[in-house]
């Protein structure tokens, strides 16, 4: 079992790396064949006031005079070794520019995700453990409430209450801790609702299973029933939802950063798009691909740990029907 899992994990990781490299190549090619040459559009734009010598120097530094395949190979080998090239505008290494703004975005995104999980978990627990007369129905109504209230209303409410009434943070300083805190809460609200809906539906389904009744008949308290029995099987689909939500979290984080002028990937994207700074854009697109692939990789790796029935290799055709199930046919296929 251990061994099979390691082989499975290794395979998945290799696959993930291949996907990331292919994404990089794909974006590179798309960017290269797009109409609109950055050299003409940006560098030769008279407003920017580059002299012809400066333009030639930039072209030489970026290697834009070489054939596309050579540029691709160069960029790809740089990408693999962590060298993302130089910004076309400032001439600074792209890796450094990203490293400067990445932490702030990561903090916002991971706080958002953490809040989403906490809120969804509380809703899930309440939906099962709270007695009907103490407001289980209200708890079950929260996800639809969270989904139907627009994000900005929650944001404005939080700013009004905690910013103006309690003076917890200064509204004009978007990088302070409390500002980040409440920004994450705002972002987490609709996301937690989506996770909670899946979680509650699955908890309901699991609690109707015969094993839940049998465990109850064994004298288990509701609290233990929830944490020992219901949570783990119910969280399987939640893992999938979270993996999908990470994209939404990042997207929303970028928008929030741009709107509120926080430093972060969002502001970097905005700047490099407006100046057509291709090396930076290419790096950010690849970074997004890396995030997605890694998140899905984690989901893939977590799944077999949560559910021992997950088969680690492609299904082998076995003679199984309801009648001839597990008697003398080994019922799991885990080895490679």
């Amino acid at each position, binding site marked *: 079992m251990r061994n099979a899992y390691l082989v499975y994990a290794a395979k998945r990781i290799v696959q993930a790396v291949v996907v990331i490299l292919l994404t990089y190549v794909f974006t590179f090619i798309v960017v290269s064949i797009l109409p609109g040459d950055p050299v003409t559009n940006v560098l030769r734009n008279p407003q920017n006031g580059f002299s012809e010598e400066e333009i030639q120097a930039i072209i030489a530094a970026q290697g834009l005079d070489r054939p596309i395949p050579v540029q691709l190979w160069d960029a790809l080998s740089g990408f693999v070794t962590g060298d993302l090239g130089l910004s076309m505008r400032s001439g600074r290494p792209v890796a450094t520019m990203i490293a400067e703004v990445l932490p702030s975005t990561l903090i916002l995104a991971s706080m958002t995700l953490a809040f989403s999980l906490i809120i969804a978990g509380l809703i899930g627990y309440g939906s099962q453990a709270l007695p009907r007369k103490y407001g289980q129905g209200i708890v079950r109504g929260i996800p639809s409430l969270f989904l139907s209230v627009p994000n900005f209303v929650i944001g404005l409410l939080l700013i009004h209450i905690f910013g103006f009434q309690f003076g917890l943070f200064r509204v004009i300083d978007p990088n302070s801790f409390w500002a980040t805190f409440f920004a994450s809460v705002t972002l987490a609200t609709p996301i937690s609702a989506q996770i909670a809906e899946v979680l509650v539906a699955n908890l309901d389904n699991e609690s109707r299973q015969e094993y839940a009744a049998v465990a109850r*008949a064994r004298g288990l308290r509701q609290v233990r029933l929830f944490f020992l029995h219901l949570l783990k099987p119910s969280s399987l689909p939640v893992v999938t939802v979270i993996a999908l939500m990470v994209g939404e979290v990042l997207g929303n984080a970028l928008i929030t950063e741009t709107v509120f002028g926080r430093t972060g990937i969002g502001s970097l994207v905005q700047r490099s798009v407006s100046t057509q700074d291709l090396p930076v854009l290419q790096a950010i697109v690849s970074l997004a691909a890396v995030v997605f692939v890694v998140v899905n990789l984690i989901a893939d790796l977590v799944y077999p740990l949560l559910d021992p029935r997950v088969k680690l290799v492609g299904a082998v055709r076995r003679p199984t029907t309801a009648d001839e199930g597990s008697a003398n046919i080994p019922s799991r296929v885990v080895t490679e």
Partner: protein
Amino acid sequence: MASQDKLTPPLTRIVTAPRRAGPLLRVEDLSVSYGPQEVVTGVGFELGRGESLALIGESGSGKSTIARSVLRLLPGNARATGRITFDGQEILALPERRFRPLRGRGIGFVPQDPGNALNPVRTIGAQAQEAAALLDEPDKAIRKELILETFAQVGLDNPGRAYESYPHQLSGGMLQRVLIGLAVLPRPALLVADEPTSALDVTIQKRILELLSRLQQDLDISLLLITHDLAVAAERTDALVVLKGGSVQEAGSTAAVFSAPSSAYARKLRADVPALNPDRYAALRDPGFARLADGKAKIAVSGVTKTFSVDGKVLKAVDDVSFAVPAGTTHALVGESGSGKTTTIRLLLGLDQPDHGDITVAGTPLAGRSQQALHAVWRHLQLVYQNPFTSLDPTWKVEHLVREPLDRFRIGTPKERGEQVREALASVGLGEQFLSRRPTALSGGQRQRVAIARALVLKPDVIVLDEPTSALDVSVQADIVEVLLSLQAKLGLTYVFVSHDLALVRQIAHTVSVMHRGRIVEHGTVGEIFDNPRQPYTRSLLKSIPSGIEGGTHRNPHAFPLKEQIA
């Protein structure tokens, strides 16, 4: 007796409360309703200490609802009135906080379907520790010892492996042993077993029931057994309560109710037990024996072998199997789970290709046929599935379900198809009012009739029946069998009947092949197999048929092999 001795330490450690006088469980005037619908009406019975009682009835008789009332596991919308007294305490009136200590410790529960009764994502050991937590034993290692001891006692041959396993790694019979072990581990005074064997093979069923009887004796536990099978109940319990539509039809000691049922319903239940009435359908079936001699073979299977490789190991699912079925007769394939029955019929239907051997249906060989050619064969070869609760699309109307094969094979005009659908439904005893219903509005028996009509509508020569009654109650089963046999008498159909229920096979088959681990170990007419079995395996299968007439052999609980034989 060794296993009993082993259990002495935990028994002394758990000092039970002094016994109160009176019966252990008394149910008085119990009524349960789901919303406006009352499913149990004024039921009452008593169960003494160390005694056993069976609640018998078909689906919808309220027997499981009564069991769940005793366990207080009714769903939220159910309302129970009346009195249930367990060991002097009134269960229905207790708040959950006061009832919870009785769960497991006072009342143990053995559920119906062992495959769904354990959490699939946790190890059996982790779940066993929950039951062991009721023992007031602080040391986890000692608790584990007790669990392993109990596992050995319920006949798991490798308790350590079972402890480490996840539920899906064990067979149904082994899981039911685990569940029984978990239920008896905290030494409850009462064990409620809700159809503990209906999801299991006949041979496993016998072993599980014997285990329950033995534990009941050894540990002095009272047993409340819920079953639809009168024969099972009569073999295992001291008293019977026969239920229908939520009220008691008849109650009394097993000997009295079983040998001389006074109510009409109990008499019908008794008549529906296949093992007690082997010749019930003789009038319909026996003319078929004449066709054995002169009829030419409708189906010929010769030297068929099929292997699968699982985990790198090669598994011979079907090993050199040959049989022939004369037209108009019924051939039964019997054997336990994993014996290769299902693989054989998959090969017969052309759903899988055999590695070796030939299969001929109505003179046409199946081997090497294209999908289209198989299509033509399927018109004459139809299948009725095991479970009518899952084999019919719940969103379709009956008319659509039965008409689908005609649409598939483009037979007749729409008007003719409608006619044929009505005809097929009429032949299984369903009127026109069923045409617009959906499967959810049908009972199990009606669903299986629809499934048979669906097979019949193409006017096939051969129908393959894959355990067609195993998901149904004994009384509904009798109904379906009657439909099948009259159809055969009327239309001259050839049946291939797959089953592990030998009593049923004896009632309806002409010839029988006994399968064991992919091979046919014995073959003959139904008379030869049942009256004069030559193979020990066949004899052991025959012995597992519950007949209700072992009378009191459950009082001698040690006369059987203790361990589950794992193939």
